[in-house]
């Protein structure tokens, strides 16, 4: 096949602009407006790539999204984009285009040797070779049975691990860049009354008609030019009339925009590719836009795709669909061959045949039907067109020095099947074995799909509510009928069912043709050329029992390549139906899934990448902490100060110093991320008393209380202190992690469960900055900073006391609560003043030995004290498990009180919170390690470690964890810690979780 560029027919067409591009780094010229395929054909390149498995030469097979052969890589370096369909990608100035899966070159590919061994690589090859039992019956993972390849051939996953890298290298398509994508992408929410998908005759007509009814219309076209089938026709007058009508209406038109998925509530995923020319001028434009489009209704004017059929060597370069030859002729002025063979089973191929003959080619039509309509016969009479009735292709042969089609072996229909009958030479073979309406989007939404026997295709009629079909997407083949259906759908003058009268429309019925199989001729007949699935693979699947279409798909990988089997799936189904001796309608079809064509992950990610991947929550002290050398750590969405290193300190040095100074003198810590919920209203006390396990009814104004909230199933949900600010208002604090969940839970209880309670809850987490001031000098510092020091004495502000005080005339709250176990206060400052007041506090703190401490030192001190956090309250523990059983009131009912008493939750053998010391005080260990009794280290462990730290107060590594039965159950047992991952095994001593200052004397002083 050698394509020839023809002169333009009409002088009205604007002068063609020449642009240049690079094919495998060789500079070539093409016409502006060419697709990559058109440009390569015009430059006489026929072999575009090598196939997935057998490395067979592949060329252009289509002019649309169904392309199965011409896959290329575009761009260089970080801009590399693999598996681009050459048939639908617009050529831009200077574009780099590369062939794929070939070495050293696409014409001479070493890998094609695999083709000779093709019969070993049939469907299921990998499963059979690398999975399953060894021949001795030993299982895959048996370590005693490792040999040296290839002696171990066929012995399970071990060998797969060895060969995988070679197989992955040999098989496959393009290679993605390993660099980060340098382009940007955008998300848009698009709203419209009616979305029309496809801008062919039916799409344009329905857009015009819908807009005339006053609806807002969005018309999307996946191609870079509007027009669809119109572009493939020689006569453009009708097209021009329609375009001028279209432009008069208020219609938004998006080209280069693929509707890739149809979702619930008529939500459509659109990906719009920004015109490369536009981006060349405005480099800040995104590469693609992902539109989440909401429409009242969607009209699918998505057209139909032409099919091929299976015969031996049907994948040779030079074989393409009839309609694509017509597109290359009329859209790109490319005559694809001079001696053209057409094989068809339906009326649609004749128009193309006539046009190709008109353009100067010799045309031979192999018609599988034994009779065709009078009209078609009249049209071809007197033209250079040979017609063979009852004929099809049995095999395509390539030339001696070229892998392109050179000759075909004809199959002649006889009373008992197909028989070989001679051969003909040709330089191009065009196939039309019927048309498949593009029903993918309706299938995404589960609209029923039916096999239409008369037209040998699957059709859908939408859902009759918001999903409608127009034109050939509905199985309508005649132009006038397509226009009529588009008008009906857009105006909703008739119900969609009425369309059934105009479905089809050929003069002579199509005669189904899926495969030509002549007994004497052997070779590969492809049904899915992209994944190298052959007709015999389908029969093998049937033979091995994979007879459901779902199994067929997975066993053979039919339709799982980048084209998702747009051409070949139906052939596969037909062959399976044939093997099962059942009609295609019985075999059915796998449901189509989004995306319709491949879309870039970049478009889906949009701007949500790197630091924008998730939102960041910064505390009001964030910048202040950074200015004071704070190192931040992610805590959920929050960025919290982790540690504040001095010169030369690492994390461990820093937190040990911070914890030491805090216990010895004074430390200040940002605790702003704790959840803060205002609870107000006359029934607030009743509400809190129902939520918390411990009594809140008698909490005095000006006092705080530590409380635990359970879930309804009796497990611990969250903990925190709640401060009574006045008779009817409380400030509840929650853990950082559960702040949002606790808020939603309180709202749920108030709105759905106890609507009679007069309580209002408000989140004030962001409105108040919080800092903990801890250590023996904490009160001394406070008396320096509060306007009236008499308010914070041991008598006026006792342990668990709360009060509002003025700091530099700003009303702040001070609560005397301690998480570190030291004498400590939490100071809450209005966020707007936090920076200035923190600086003021820190300046005053310089009078004492003092430090800022981060999350790591906070963790150290809480572990020393045995205070629990999310590491222990992981949703699987009861209040007794964490040693706080006495906080569950026996005198009231609260959320979770009924179910916490279930038998398995009250068992004394449940794992309970303990402290862990290493026997050898120099030993270090990690969280996640398991606890066992010595000598019983196999099987289910007795316990596990939840949190580990080096304790500066005790001088060695310590941990919190859980162990069955708690401290009393293991007191006289020899417990060992095992950490298989890090190969760390040591003897440990189980102690009370209150490892430091168990009497609490330090915090009461």
């Amino acid at each position: 096949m050698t394509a020839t560029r023809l002169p333009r027919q009409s002088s009205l067409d604007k002068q063609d602009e020449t642009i240049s591009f690079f094919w495998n780094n060789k500079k070539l010229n093409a016409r502006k407006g060419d697709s990559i395929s058109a440009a390569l054909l015009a430059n006489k390149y026929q072999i575009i790539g090598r196939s997935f498995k057998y490395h067979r030469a592949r060329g252009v097979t289509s002019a649309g999204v169904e392309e199965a052969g011409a896959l290329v890589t575009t761009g260089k370096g970080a801009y590399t984009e693999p598996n681009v369909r050459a048939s639908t990608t617009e050529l831009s100035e200077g574009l780099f285009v590369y062939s794929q899966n070939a070495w050293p070159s696409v014409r001479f590919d070493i890998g094609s040797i695999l083709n000779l061994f093709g019969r070993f690589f049939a469907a299921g090859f990998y499963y059979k070779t690398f999975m399953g039992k060894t021949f001795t019956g030993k299982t895959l993972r048996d370590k005693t049975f490792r040999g040296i390849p290839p002696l171990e051939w066929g012995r399970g996953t071990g060998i797969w691990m060895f060969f995988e890298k070679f197989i992955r290298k040999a098989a496959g398509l393009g290679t993605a860049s390993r660099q980060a994508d340098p382009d940007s992408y955008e998300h848009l929410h698009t709203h419209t009354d009616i979305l029309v998908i496809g801008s062919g005759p039916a799409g344009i007509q329905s857009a015009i008609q819908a807009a005339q009814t006053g609806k807002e219309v969005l018309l999307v076209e996946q191609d870079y030019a509007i027009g669809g089938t119109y572009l493939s026709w020689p006569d453009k007058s009708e097209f021009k009339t329609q375009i001028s009508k279209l432009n008069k209406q208020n219609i938004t038109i998006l080209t280069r925009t693929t509707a890739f998925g149809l979702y619930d509530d008529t939500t459509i995923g659109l990906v719009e590719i920004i015109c490369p020319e536009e981006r060349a001028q405005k480099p800040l434009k995104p590469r693609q836009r992902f539109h989440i489009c909401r429409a009242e209704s969607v009209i699918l004017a998505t057209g139909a795709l032409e099919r091929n059929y299976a015969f031996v060597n049907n994948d040779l370069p030079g074989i393409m669909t009839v309609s694509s030859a017509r597109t290359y002729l009329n859209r790109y002025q490319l005559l694809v061959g001079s001696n053209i063979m057409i094989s068809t089973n339906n009326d649609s191929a004749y128009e193309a045949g006539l046009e190709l003959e008109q353009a100067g080619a010799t045309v031979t039509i192999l018609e599988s039907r034994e009779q065709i309509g009078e009209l078609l016969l009249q049209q071809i009479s007197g033209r250079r067109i040979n017609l063979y009735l009852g004929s099809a292709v049995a095999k395509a042969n390539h030339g001696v020095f070229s892998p392109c089609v050179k000759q075909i072996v004809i199959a002649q229909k006889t009373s008992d099947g197909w028989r070989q009958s001679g051969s003909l030479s040709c330089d191009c073979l065009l196939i039309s074995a019927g048309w498949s309406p593009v029903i993918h989007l309706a299938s995404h939404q589960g609209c029923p799909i039916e096999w239409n026997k008369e037209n040998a295709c699957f059709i859908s009629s939408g859902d009759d509510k918001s999903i409608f079909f127009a034109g050939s997407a509905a199985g309508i083949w005649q132009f006038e009928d397509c226009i009529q259906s588009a008008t009906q759908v857009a105006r909703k003058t008739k119900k969609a069912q009425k369309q059934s009268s105009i479905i089809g429309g050929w003069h002579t019925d199509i005669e189904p043709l899926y495969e030509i199989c002549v007994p004497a001729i052997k070779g590969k007949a492809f049904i899915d050329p992209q994944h190298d699935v052959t007709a015999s693979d389908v029969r093998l699947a049937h033979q091995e029992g994979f007879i459901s279409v779902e199994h067929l798909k997975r066993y053979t990988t039919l339709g799982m390549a980048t084209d998702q089997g747009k051409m070949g799936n139906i052939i596969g189904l037909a062959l399976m139906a044939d093997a099962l001796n059942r009609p295609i309608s019985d075999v059915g079809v796998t449901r189509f899934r989004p995306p319709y064509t491949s879309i870039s992950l970049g478009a889906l990610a949009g701007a949500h990448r790197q630091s924008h991947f998730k939102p960041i929550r910064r505390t009001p002290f964030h910048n202040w902490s950074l200015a004071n050398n704070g190192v931040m750590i992610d805590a959920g969405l929050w960025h919290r100060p982790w540690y504040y290193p001095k010169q030369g300190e690492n994390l461990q040095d820093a937190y040990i110093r911070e914890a030491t100074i805090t216990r010895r003198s004074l430390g200040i810590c940002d605790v702003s991320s704790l959840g803060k919920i205002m609870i107000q209203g006359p029934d607030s006390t009743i509400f809190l008393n129902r939520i918390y396990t411990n009594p809140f009814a008698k909490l005095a104004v000006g006092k705080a209380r530590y409380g635990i909230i359970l879930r309804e199933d009796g497990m611990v949900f969250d903990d925190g202190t709640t401060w009574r600010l006045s008779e009817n208002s409380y400030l509840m604090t929650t853990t950082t992690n559960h702040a949002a969940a606790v808020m939603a839970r309180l709202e749920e209880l108030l709105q759905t469960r106890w609507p009679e309670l007069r309580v209002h809850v408000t989140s004030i987490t962001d409105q108040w900055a919080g800092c903990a001031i801890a250590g023996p000098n904490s009160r001394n510092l406070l008396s320096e900073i509060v306007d009236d020091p008499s308010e914070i004495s041991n008598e006026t502000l006792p342990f668990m006391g709360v009060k509002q005080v003025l700091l530099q005339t700003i009303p702040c709250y001070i609560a005397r609560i301690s998480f570190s176990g030291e004498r400590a206060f939490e100071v809450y400052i209005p966020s707007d003043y936090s920076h200035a007041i923190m600086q003021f506090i820190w300046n005053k703190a310089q009078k004492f030995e003092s430090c800022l401490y981060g999350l790591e030192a906070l963790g150290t001190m809480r572990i020393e004290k045995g205070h629990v956090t999310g590491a222990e309250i992981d949703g699987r523990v009861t209040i007794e498990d964490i040693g706080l059983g006495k906080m569950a009131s026996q005198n009231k009912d609260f959320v979770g009180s009924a179910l916490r008493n279930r038998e398995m939750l009250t068992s004394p053998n449940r794992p309970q919170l303990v402290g862990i010391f290493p026997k050898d005080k120099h030993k270090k260990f990690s969280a996640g390690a398991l606890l066992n009794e010595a000598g019983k280290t196999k099987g289910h462990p007795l316990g596990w470690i939840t949190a580990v730290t080096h304790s500066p107060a005790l001088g060695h590594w310590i941990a919190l964890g859980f162990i069955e039965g708690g401290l009393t159950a293991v007191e006289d047992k020899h417990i060992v810690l095992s950490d298989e991952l890090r190969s760390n095994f040591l003897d440990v001593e189980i102690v009370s979780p209150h490892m430091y200052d168990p009497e609490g004397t330090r915090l009461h002083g």
Partner: protein
Amino acid sequence: MIQISCPFCGKRDHSEFSYGGDGQINYPSLDAAQETWHDAVFLRENIYGRQIETWQHLYGCRSWLLVERDTRTHEIFSVKLAHADWQKMMAENR
């Protein structure tokens, strides 16, 4: 990508909402027996068709809602405020 019509805020994308659970459970009082609580917390119908469920308009007005939805098609038939008095107030002010 279903949309839910919040009685306060209007039709919004479901990503603004968070799913609660079965909206037809009659939760017992806190002093009810363990068995009663067990049934309320753990027993759920696996409905094929219309069911009433609770949703919260988390990134909106934060109302808890009773949504009647078809589990097969995601079609939504009605949305009400879960708080009966608020629902009544909304109806009266229409």
